[in-house]
């Protein structure tokens, strides 16, 4: 018999019951909750007079609607100026009190984007099943946790039963072999993968990311890769456990301690695909060929390298795609064959559950240090993923680097990734964004999003247009030598 994939193992460890109709009951170890997709679930519980199955499996924090300026945040919930947003955040607070669920409230130093907070607290552990009413729950797969986004009805289902009705997914492996070039990051890797397999390339699959380039990534980098599995159509992204995983988790707040830690580590070591495991689909990329990526269109698969150009719709693979390209260029205000480095920017956003962790801020600060944001940039903002990331960055003096360069240093939240709060693009504005989706209107009505890594976003802020961060690094080195 063929060996098991990591996904197969996680599935069988949580299988409560095969139901005989192609579906199964899967036990859920952790549910993360935020204000946008939970109110109707709690309301459903109330109407049916149900209570949560297991309180300690849940952890909540508001993130999508929270304002990010210090002035507003100083007022707590009262600082939320939009009355509809305020009600939503207040409703989360009220529901958590009513049902007894632990919540990191708006001004708790542990508050932040759920997908940053979970791992940071050790609330995400290898071998867990993790769900959240948010598609970027795939992030937690970086810890070899079976993690995926669910809808509000499923949030209610998990609250009431601690289980999900699920169907087993197919196994897909994406291997990235070799060594990444200098200035090429996890974000570039995952954008290159999506560019290769398309936004439906992983539909119906759990994608395990493997290969030497993935093994070399930090946990932050691995989270960035798994985070965007959903942009390749896969609800689940996974990376096997190794020393990097275990070192990250040691001494985290909710991580086990003493003998339980040892037992857990021994168990986690088994969370890898067997050597003879069979995948339904395998895709391999050469790490050395990946250059810094920039999306030019309105779907994450519309992406190319920094040395590339906007494609000509006439060369699209089929008619449907051709229409998509034409529409995207029109929306983005770009022309066929335009060089990526000629795209001028209005705003820069460094943040989101994809790229707002400490390593991301360090990468951006490295580029911004001693430089100035271009005059043509109306707003360049840094939004840390959590209060603890912000604090760590301040300990390292990164906030000063950013402020001196002309960036705004904000309070944690989802912010301009989806612009549910006041942080948004104006119509027609181009934004270099470290977020995950470049859909029409995503960052604001008529806004034009270009997905990039934190280093590329910082470099674009300084130049006012896209530049190859690898050349910036080379120039800096040359200057150092001259001095």
């Amino acid at each position: 018999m063929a060996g098991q994939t990591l996904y197969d193992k996680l599935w069988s460890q949580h299988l409560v019951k095969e139901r005989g109709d192609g579906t199964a009951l899967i036990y859920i170890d952790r549910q993360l909750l935020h204000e946008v997709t939970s109110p109707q679930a709690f309301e459903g519980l109330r109407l049916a007079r149900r209570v949560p199955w297991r309180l300690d499996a849940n952890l909540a924090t508001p993130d999508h609607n929270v304002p990010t300026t210090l002035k507003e945040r100083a007022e707590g919930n009262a600082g939320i100026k939009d009355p509809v947003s305020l009600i939503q955040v207040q409703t989360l607070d009220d529901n958590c009190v009513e049902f007894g669920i632990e919540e990191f409230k708006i001004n708790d130093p542990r508050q932040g984007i759920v997908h940053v907070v979970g791992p940071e607290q050790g609330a995400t552990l290898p071998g867990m099943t993790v769900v959240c009413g948010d598609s970027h729950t795939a992030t937690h797969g970086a810890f070899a946790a079976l993690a995926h986004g669910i809808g509000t009805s499923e949030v209610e289902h998990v609250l009431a039963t601690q289980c999900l009705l699920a169907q087993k997914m197919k196994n897909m492996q994406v291997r990235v072999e070799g060594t990444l070039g200098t200035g090429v990051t996890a974000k570039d890797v995952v954008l290159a993968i999506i560019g290769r397999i398309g936004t439906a390339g992983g539909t119906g699959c759990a994608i395990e990311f493997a290969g030497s380039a993935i093994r070399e990534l930090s946990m932050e980098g691995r989270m960035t890769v798994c985070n965007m599995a959903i942009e390749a159509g896969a609800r689940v992204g996974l990376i096997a456990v190794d020393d990097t995983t275990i070192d990250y988790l040691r001494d985290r707040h909710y991580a086990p301690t003493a003998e339980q830690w040892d037992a857990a580590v021994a168990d986690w070591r088994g969370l890898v695909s067997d050597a003879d495991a069979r995948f339904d689909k395998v895709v391999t990329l050469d790490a050395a060929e990946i250059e810094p990526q920039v999306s030019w269109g309105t779907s994450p698969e519309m992406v190319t390298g920094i040395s590339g150009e906007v494609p000509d719709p006439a060369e699209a693979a089929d008619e449907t795609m051709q229409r998509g390209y034409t529409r995207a260029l029109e929306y983005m205000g770009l022309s066929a064959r335009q060089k990526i480095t000629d795209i001028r920017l209005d705003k820069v956003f460094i943040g989101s559950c994809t790229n707002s962790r400490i390593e991301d801020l360090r990468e951006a600060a490295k580029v911004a240090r001693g430089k100035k944001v271009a005059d043509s940039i109306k707003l360049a903002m840094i939004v840390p993923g959590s209060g603890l990331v912000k604090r760590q960055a301040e300990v390292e003096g990164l906030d000063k680097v950013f402020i001196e360069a002309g960036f705004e240093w904000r309070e944690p939240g989802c912010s301009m990734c989806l612009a549910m709060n006041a942080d948004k693009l104006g119509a027609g504005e181009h934004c270099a964004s470290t977020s995950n989706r470049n859909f029409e209107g995503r960052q604001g009505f008529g806004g034009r999003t270009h997905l990039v890594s934190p280093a590329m976003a910082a470099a674009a802020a300084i130049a006012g247009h896209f530049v190859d961060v690898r050349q910036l690094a080379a120039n800096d080195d040359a200057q150092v030598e001259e001095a």
Partner: protein
Amino acid sequence: MNKFVRAEGLVAPLDRANVDTDLIIPKQFLKSIKRTGFGVNLFDELRYLDEGQPGQDVTNRPVNTDFVLNQPRYEGASVLLARRNFGCGSSREHAPWALEDFGFRVVIAPSFADIFYNNAFKNGLLLVPLPEETIDRLFAEVEASEGYRLDVDLEHQRVITPSGEILDFEVDAFRKHCLLEGLDDIGITLKDEDAIRAFEEKHRAARPWLFRDSAQA
């Protein structure tokens, strides 16, 4: 949940691939804490020329007359014909809520994104996958004949065209059962309460660190 057995209705064609959930219902409308009232903002950025706000009276907003759902011939449509990878992007269940609230009972497309697929069925919205060539043909037929209607029969898993052609489609047995009966998933799962408790005990014994109340202090 709403029952779905059979629906016959006017078809509206949305000729666009990768329709994402941000397009189906933009984020500003996700601030509602209710499950209803999203229909007036379905495809908001395509339907209207201005930026919509939650709770706003839409009657005086400038309408994009080019958009298919604003064309008089598609008024009252209950079947949406779309292209591949429909519903990609976020997990917002507001997307099927908005489609249903607008009046759609069925979406027909070559393929659907996974989370949207789950969410739709939990709300009585039937998703019908058909081969790309068939979809191409349906688009042509809808364009060509005003008042084009389809009859979607879930029980027999078939779509019947005006010319009487029968198009079979696949649907999971469990989802079909739930739709036909209008069953509540939670109620079904709680029938297995004992099995869940037994599993939970075994799971806790094997991996106590997964349970915060069993964790070592």
